[in-house]
């Protein structure tokens, strides 16, 4: 059922788009488009010469030289690697803080780490210009302490910082979960055997935290490899990534090129995911200790050098985090209450109220946007959960090629959003013909399907490690006692991995709330727009109305997460 749904709702529609890479006008099959892209230095830089069968010895010196051409794809990978390193660098201290220290608001902070994930890039761009721009907060602070201003906008650095904004919280979330599940007794044993605290960390804690860091890093790479609107908003066209060109080719109806680029993008992303999955399989350390490491108080009663040092480091981190994560959001909130004359005003919220009251049926109004967002997110989550759990069960059984199935199940993370939107639009909304009947699907349903498909890989990722670590004998005994397969999943496996399911649900929900690219393509009716779509519509010459809607998105999602995590109980995994 799940696989059938996946095939109908995802692989078939997407396949119909991707296959255009190899179909020529008269219906024949060709690899010409691929060959052309592979040999094109514009896309592959110096590597293209290898694909064009130049001697590796001729190419190698140019590749290592400093003025080598990266090509669009090389550059995309380069910025993704930089973004991944930076996201891990800024995500780990947050995980350390959240996993090892106790302070007021820790749980709320942990819930809110998902918020950057749902912010539409338009809002992030607004917040970033206001924070890192020429007249932004950062330069105001630098000026106040007598330092020269920095020019960050329209540079690679701006893009990387924006990617950190989106992905470091993700790294922090996964890592925190792993860190919390380190068994205190293992550390105590190591210490009692004479290991110093640093040695104990390296030998006991690090091996258990490391795979989670890699999970975060792999996902970050995949997301930033497929980055799109933020690049053109904060960087500019000279820093265009491969997704920019996929998008442009789709808009231009040049599907062969779009599909070929999308496949290349997909193959690279899946390669990274596959490598990570192989690593995960070999290095899953499961000591689901009943007793996690005790948290330390953030403000120790008796300050010693050893107590103070990490806290000073964290204090420094909090300053950086405040600039990267809090300042853009705060700037956005500020923009929503700033009038044209620079004074404080509630006009932009009044605009939303007016639009709600007097807007015509064919115009975008705030309340339907909120309602649709929540309905779609709820429905997509309910759809993604069973899909994710079933796929997780499939990928934790032992058989040949299991890792491939696992990687294929992760494909929705790595497929370009515009291609998903186009595939579902053509495959479901326009309809397909079966035996003389044209089957069509309403745009709203297609949106739910698109969101569910985008969200279920997270459920797989949060549930699969738990399932893999389950005691097989439990399941075998239940089966021996006559329980059906379904019954075993429902009564034994699911309750044991429930925290992972909740964590996956939160992510599926977040993905749905934040999704824009496919939604806007599918929301062809007047009744299917979501909050991110409304934000885009409210953008005009003044940013006020759009930022006000953005603040509403923030509040609605923030509240939803606190509710989801309270309802779901303790969460672990992602």
């Amino acid at each position, binding site marked *: 059922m799940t696989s059938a749904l996946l095939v109908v709702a995802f692989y078939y529609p997407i396949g119909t788009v991707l296959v255009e890479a190899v179909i020529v006008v008269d219906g024949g099959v060709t690899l010409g488009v691929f060959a052309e892209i592979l040999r094109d230095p514009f896309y592959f830089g110096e590597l293209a010469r290898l694909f064009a069968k130049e001697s590796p010895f001729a190419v190698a010196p140019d590749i290592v030289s400093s003025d080598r*051409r990266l090509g*669009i794809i090389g*550059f995309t990978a380069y910025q993704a690697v930089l973004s991944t390193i930076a996201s891990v660098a800024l995500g780990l201290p947050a995980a350390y803080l959240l996993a090892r220290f106790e302070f007021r608001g820790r*749980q709320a902070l*942990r819930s809110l780490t998902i918020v950057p994930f749902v912010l539409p890039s338009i809002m992030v761009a607004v917040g970033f210009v*206001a924070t890192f*721009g*020429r007249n932004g907060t950062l330069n105001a602070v630098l000026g106040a302490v007598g330092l020269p201003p920095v020019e960050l906008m*329209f540079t690679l650095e701006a893009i990387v910082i924006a990617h950190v904004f989106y992905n470091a919280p993700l790294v922090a979330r996964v890592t925190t979960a792993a860190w919390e599940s380190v068994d205190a007794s293992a550390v105590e044993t190591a210490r009692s055997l004479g290991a110093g605290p640093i040695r104990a960390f390296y030998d006991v804690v690090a091996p258990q935290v490391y795979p989670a860091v890699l999970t975060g890093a792999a996902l970050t790479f995949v997301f930033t490899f497929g980055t799109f609107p933020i690049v*053109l*908003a904060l960087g*500019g*066209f*000279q820093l*265009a990534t491969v997704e*920019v*060109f996929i998008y*442009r080719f789709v*808009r*231009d109806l040049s599907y062969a090129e779009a599909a070929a680029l999308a496949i290349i993008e997909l193959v690279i992303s899946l390669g990274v995911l596959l490598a990570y999955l192989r690593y995960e399989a070999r290095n899953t350390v499961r000591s689901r200790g009943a007793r*996690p490491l005790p948290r330390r108080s953030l403000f120790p009663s008796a300050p010693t050098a050893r107590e103070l040092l990490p806290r000073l480091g964290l204090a420094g981190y909090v300053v950086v985090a405040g600039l990267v994560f809090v300042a853009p959001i705060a700037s956005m909130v500020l923009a929503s209450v700033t009038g*044209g004359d620079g004074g404080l005003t509630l006009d932009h919220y009044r605009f939303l109220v007016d639009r709600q009251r007097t807007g*015509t049926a*064919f*115009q*975008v109004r705030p309340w339907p946007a909120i309602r649709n967002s929540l309905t779609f997110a709820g429905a997509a989550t*309910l*759809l993604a959960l*069973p899909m994710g759990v079933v796929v997780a069960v499939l990928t934790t059984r032992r058989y040949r090629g299991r890792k491939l199935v696992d990687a294929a199940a992760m494909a929705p993370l790595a497929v370009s959003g515009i291609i998903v939107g186009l595939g579902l639009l*053509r495959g479901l909304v326009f309809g397909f*013909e079966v035996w*003389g*009947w*044209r*089957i*069509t*699907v*309403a745009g*709203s*349903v297609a949106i739910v*399907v698109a969101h569910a498909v985008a969200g279920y890989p997270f459920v797989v990722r949060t549930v699969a490690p738990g399932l893999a670590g389950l005691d097989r004998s439990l399941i075998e005994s239940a089966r021996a006692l006559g329980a059906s397969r379904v019954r075993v999943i429902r009564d034994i496996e699911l*309750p044991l991995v*429930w925290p992972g399911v909740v964590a996956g649900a939160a992510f599926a929900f977040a993905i749905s709330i934040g999704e824009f690219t496919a939604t*806007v*393509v599918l929301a*062809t*009716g007047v*009744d*299917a727009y979501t909050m991110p779509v409304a934000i885009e*519509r409210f*953008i*005009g*010459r*003044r*940013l006020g109305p759009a930022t006000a809607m953005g603040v509403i998105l923030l509040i609605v999602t923030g509240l939803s997460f606190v509710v989801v995590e309270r*309802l*779901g*109980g*303790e*969460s672990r995994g992602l």
Partner: protein
Amino acid sequence: MTDDETTADRRDTARPARRHTRRQFLAVGGAAAGAVALAGCSAEQTGDGTGDDGDGTDKNTGDDTDGEDNGTEETPTLTVATYESFIDAPSVSPGEWLKDEFESRFDAELEWATPDNGVNYYIERERSGADLNADLYVGFNTDDLVQIDEELNDGLFAESGDIAGLEAVREGLRFDPFDRAVPFDTGYISLVYNGTQTEAPETFDGLLDDEHRGALIAQNPGSSTTGRAFLLHTVHRFGDGADGAIDGADGDTAYDYLDYWAELQDNDVRVLGSWDNTYSAWSEGEAPMVVSYSTDQVFADMEGADLGEHQIRFLNDQAYANPEGMAVFNGADHPDIAREFMSFMLEPAVQGEIAERNVAFPATDTADLPDDYAALAQEPADPVTFRYEELQGSVSEWVSDWERQFAGN
């Protein structure tokens, strides 16, 4: 939640509740999946003949009102496709007024459709063999029309036929050599600059001066109308090379638009993704000049902004003109009402309203406009634009050559 501070008894009470939630989740999930599978789908017989998408074809998605013909007594519904900001902009848009006015005078209901990606959405529907579900499209440019004709053998639109008021349309705006598109308004793409920070140069060459280093923000011509118009203006000015189709107005065949852009890039021009991106960056003071519409002061005045910060510059006294057209879809359900609507759009009073509410210029020279309109909405001395024939076969190459040069790294 984590279990750090959770006491044992709290966990015990929490557990049955959780299991309960899970069961509910699963039950609801199953039901939802089923309901989704049933509710959103609809099926319809595709008819006996192939390609029979003429009259009598039903609408197939639930959210479209139907357009019954065959002389039913119901009020017919005219479905007008357009771009979003035509009916739904945060400032002003003509959609609502047009709908009310049209419905009060004609025996028809007007329904707007604004699919993302505009005209391309209908190209896509046509290619997929799906019914278009719309009668006419309002608001496409010359390059949209070129794209349609390149993608579809039979095009997308029918000939306009006899439209009352067509003779009043200004001569230079009739951009369709095959008489399908009827222009209803036009706009000019120019520089908008903050006069309190800089004085914009008078010419294209002036933009290359050191003084204006990093001072201009433009848009990606591949995805933005203003960005494309500005690129086309540079092609018009500098030509597309010695063996190209266009001889630049600068008279130097050896120096083409790509050469100019190379120098512009050296002078740190910023090219962002969309007009929104650029206008907000410009408003925040990231650079003093932006490529935008020559009607900028109309908006600025509406907002009570300082007009000194919203100055218009026509480079070389020129601006690229982007006339917007409307046309009836092939196989429209109500072609006659659609043509009545087009005549309605050309009436002097309606032309004036469109110009004011879409903040553009009328297509006819008979439009009723307030006398002071021209004070804020500026027109260049020398509007330039490419004809359909000039864009055909060239525009996509101009854009992709530019992309390859600008993003080459």
